[in-house]
């Protein structure tokens, strides 16, 4: 039987093998892709075996570092399984895209992407704070190396930004974890279940800052733009698609259940920051002059929106946030692939060099329009469903919050339409006119298509997801909601 531990171990071991064994260029890429496909298959198996009931399932719980009271405790609930599934899918697509883009030193880049996947699985599945920290901080290592070695010209600054922000946050969290683990009533115990309700305000904020940086939540989003700009497209897809979700997920699955009293007490802080970030990010996305800028700022906006949804501490808010995490992961990853593909073909992502690409390129136009329509939450799309849930939650919280949030949704429509018109419509100008790039096909298309298909699938049958995560999401925030008197 495949366990969650195997799920984490397989990509990790494959990564080490790929790093150590000198495979030929293409072989390494295909092997990594094969591994990620197998992992994806295993995850689908888990989805079928999963029972939509309260509590955590498929637990592995063995002693890891005895003297410190650290255990290897991994298990999933509906929310974490959804995140694991989306991670497996995006990793596979990212490896496919890297294969198409023919990265140099492909064995190392593929290995690092697989390593990221393993760390992300650990973040989503860990039920022990030590293991959670290993995943949360550990995923930074492969992502940083990917940024340093394969990044764009401004990668040095980007790397410094990433590390300065995230390391500070996670190290503060480490102090919080140490406090929770070492002050446990019966000797050191880092299990999350044993930490519920024991932390004070400073521990809460130590965790919250770490998660806010990773998400990113306004005003701690400074590292995001350089990182998304300088990464190669597949790394940007992993970063914005799933690595950022680690932060939002941790808000919902770690912070809120572990600190119910503080989560209720300070929910307004996160709702306020989420609202500001949503509007601010959307406005800035509207002002960007290139595809990456739009996707990056829209990511900031969407992540703030998700955090807002989580801290509504209501059924609609939490389910909507989880749903929106999945949707945004798929969309932002796919958008980064499209933007990255354009950059490779045209040599620039700047809107001044693009335009009129819809002509003679039906596939590109279709994919872009589907993604754009989904991102701006056209009714009937899965994003509409998730954003609608969060907005309903916001209206339940207070009518004026709902009103303000609706404004952000309108802004999303504006920047997505602007992006679509900038690349697809108008005349073929600039480099796009001279180079006459081909249509989206084969390799790159294969990397994007699965994401689009899942998005369409979720639009048709959103209940497939919401039914599975509903109970878990409710369980996560119920204690905090009780504290808040809701």
């Amino acid at each position, binding site marked *: 039987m495949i366990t969650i531990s195997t799920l984490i171990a397989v990509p990790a071991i494959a990564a080490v093998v790929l790093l150590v064994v000198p495979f030929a260029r293409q072989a390494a890429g295909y092997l990594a892709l094969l591994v990620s496909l197998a992992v994806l298959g295993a995850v689908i198996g888990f989805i079928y075996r999963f029972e939509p009931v309260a509590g955590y399932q498929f637990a592995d719980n063995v002693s890891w570092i005895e003297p*410190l009271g650290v255990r290897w405790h991994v298990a999933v609930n509906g929310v974490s399984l959804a995140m694991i599934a989306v991670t497996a899918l995006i990793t596979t697509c990212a490896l496919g895209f890297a294969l198409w883009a023919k990265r140099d030193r492909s064995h190392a880049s593929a290995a690092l992407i697989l390593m990221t996947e393993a760390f992300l699985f650990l973040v989503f599945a860990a039920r022990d704070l030590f293991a959670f920290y290993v995943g949360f901080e550990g995923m930074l*290592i492969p992502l940083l190396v990917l940024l340093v070695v394969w990044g764009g010209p401004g990668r040095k600054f980007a790397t410094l930004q990433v590390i300065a922000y995230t*390391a500070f946050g996670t190290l*503060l969290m*480490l*102090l919080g974890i140490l406090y929770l683990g070492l002050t446990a009533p019966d000797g050191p115990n880092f299990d999350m279940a044993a930490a519920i309700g024991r932390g004070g305000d400073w521990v809460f904020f130590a965790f919250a800052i770490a998660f806010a940086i990773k998400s990113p939540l306004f005003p701690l989003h400074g590292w995001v733009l350089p990182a998304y700009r300088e990464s190669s497209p597949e790394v940007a897809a992993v970063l914005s698609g799933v690595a950022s979700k680690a932060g939002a997920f941790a808000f919902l699955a770690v912070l809120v259940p572990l600190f119910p009293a503080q989560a209720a007490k300070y929910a307004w802080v996160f709702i306020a920051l989420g609202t500001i970030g949503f509007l601010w990010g959307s406005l800035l996305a509207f002002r960007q002059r290139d595809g990456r800028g739009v996707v990056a700022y829209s990511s900031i906006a969407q992540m703030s929106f998700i955090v807002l949804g989580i801290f509504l501490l209501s059924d609609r808010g939490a389910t909507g946030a989880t749903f929106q995490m999945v949707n945004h992961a798929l969309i932002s990853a796919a958008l980064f692939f499209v933007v990255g593909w354009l950059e490779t073909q045209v040599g620039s992502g700047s809107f001044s060099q693009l335009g009129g690409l819809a002509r003679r390129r039906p596939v590109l136009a279709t994919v872009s329009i589907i993604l754009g329509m989904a991102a701006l939450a056209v009714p009937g799309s899965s994003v509409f469903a998730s954003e609608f849930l969060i907005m309903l939650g916001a209206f339940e919280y207070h009518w004026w919050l709902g009103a303000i949030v609706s404004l952000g949704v309108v802004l999303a429509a504006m920047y997505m339409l602007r992006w679509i018109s900038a690349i697809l419509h108008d005349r073929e100008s600039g480099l796009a006119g001279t180079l006459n790039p081909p249509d989206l096909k084969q390799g790159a298309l294969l990397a994007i298509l699965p994401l689009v298909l899942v998005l369409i699938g979720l639009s048709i049958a959103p209940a497939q997801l919401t039914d599975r995560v509903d109970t878990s999401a409710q369980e996560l925030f119920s204690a905090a909601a009780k504290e808040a008197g809701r």
Partner: protein
Amino acid sequence: MIKAPDVNWLAIAPMMTLMIGAFVLLLLASFIRGRDRGLGTVVGIIALLASAGFAINLWSEPATTTMAGALQIDQLTQVVTVLIAGCGILTLLVAFGWNRMRENGAEFVALLLLIAAGMDLIAASNSFVTLFVALELFSLSLYVLCAFDGKSKASLESGFKYLVLGTIGSMVLVYGAAFLYGATGSFGFEAINTALSKAGSGDALVILGTVLVLIGLAFKIGVMPFHMWVADVYEGAPTSVTGFMSAATKIAAFVALARVLLDALPAMRDTWAPALIIIAVVTMILGNISALVQTNLKRMLAYASVGAAGFGLIAIIVGGAAGTRGLIFYLVAYAPMAIGAFAVISLHERDHKGIATLDSIRGWGFQRPVAAVSMVVFLLGFAGFPLTVGFIGKFVVLGSAVEGNYTWLGVVAVVASVISLGYLLRIMLAMFDRGAKSGVMMAAAPGIGSLNLAILLCLALVLIGGILPGLGLDWAADAAKSLAAGR
């Protein structure tokens, strides 16, 4: 007629083996001209392994004192002996291909063995007299090792500087010990402790003695403001020796500090703890900031090790079972990272035939991927990233701070490690700088094999210690019980 004290030969076998090894080598040295290197290395490794073997053998024995109470043989002594032996073996592997080893290998190894014996004696010392003798035994030999590359002015300068400043440190220590002797009538740690806990801590003589002893040991550890020798000495000394210094000297000096402060002077806590807190904070922050502006890698890592020493002080300030275990494990964890990092620098110097700077390593990572990736792991270890042993070290020390209500010191340490990421990242970025011309001329450097072996051994230790540290933590906890505070 003075009666000679009883000697428990088995208990001092680890140190005796090292000294015997050193003298055998020195005697043989005049006969074996030309084969210095091989013979020296073999004898050295055998002596170090034997001392570690004796120490492991003594592990389960109850703690004893011997030589009329001058030495205490307990588990802390054994852990240090094994650690120093490990550091010594790795250093011999790193140094093997160095051309000075061809000419004076036997002397090099003999000095290294004497240093190791001195460090073991420090860990075993039970009185200020033994401590001073042991300190001088290792320091004097280390001064010579620093100046071992007689053709290099930097090396000579390094040895000289270390000699002058190190001697000042020793003198201040002796001066302080004399005051304590004057106040309590004894050099023995236990006797001092008993006398002070009876008499109270208000005596000016005792306070002066405590402060002077603290300053003397601070010199040896190299914490601010007594760190001025560190960068120059680390930079000038042969790189293999630098690696050994940053790992082993730190172990010895920290254990000395722990024995003195926690065993002999716990009654003076009100005097030394505030001083140590200030020193720790200043050292962590300024040490890492100083490292940021360096371009010479050895200087950079020298300041990094100053910062790391400040971090180690946290564990002594906290004390108790958690603090002492944290300290010992942190020292264990730091050793393979430090030796490994300097081994990689050593490799680079041999490739490049010059000093290692941020410029000289530009793009070098693509030429030596294994060494460069190992370097990344060591640097991540310094920064305390998960899955490296450095993380567990940081975890236990910060844990002790949180448990001991020194969380704010932990916050300072966090700020310091974020600063440290700045320079660690600069090294990584430079090694994997795609844009750089592949500037390093790869000369066929001899003795790379053993150097690579050393790097890989350090890498394995750092990773295994990071993933499965349980055994090491148990040992550290046992060894911590040798200190009064650890019980």
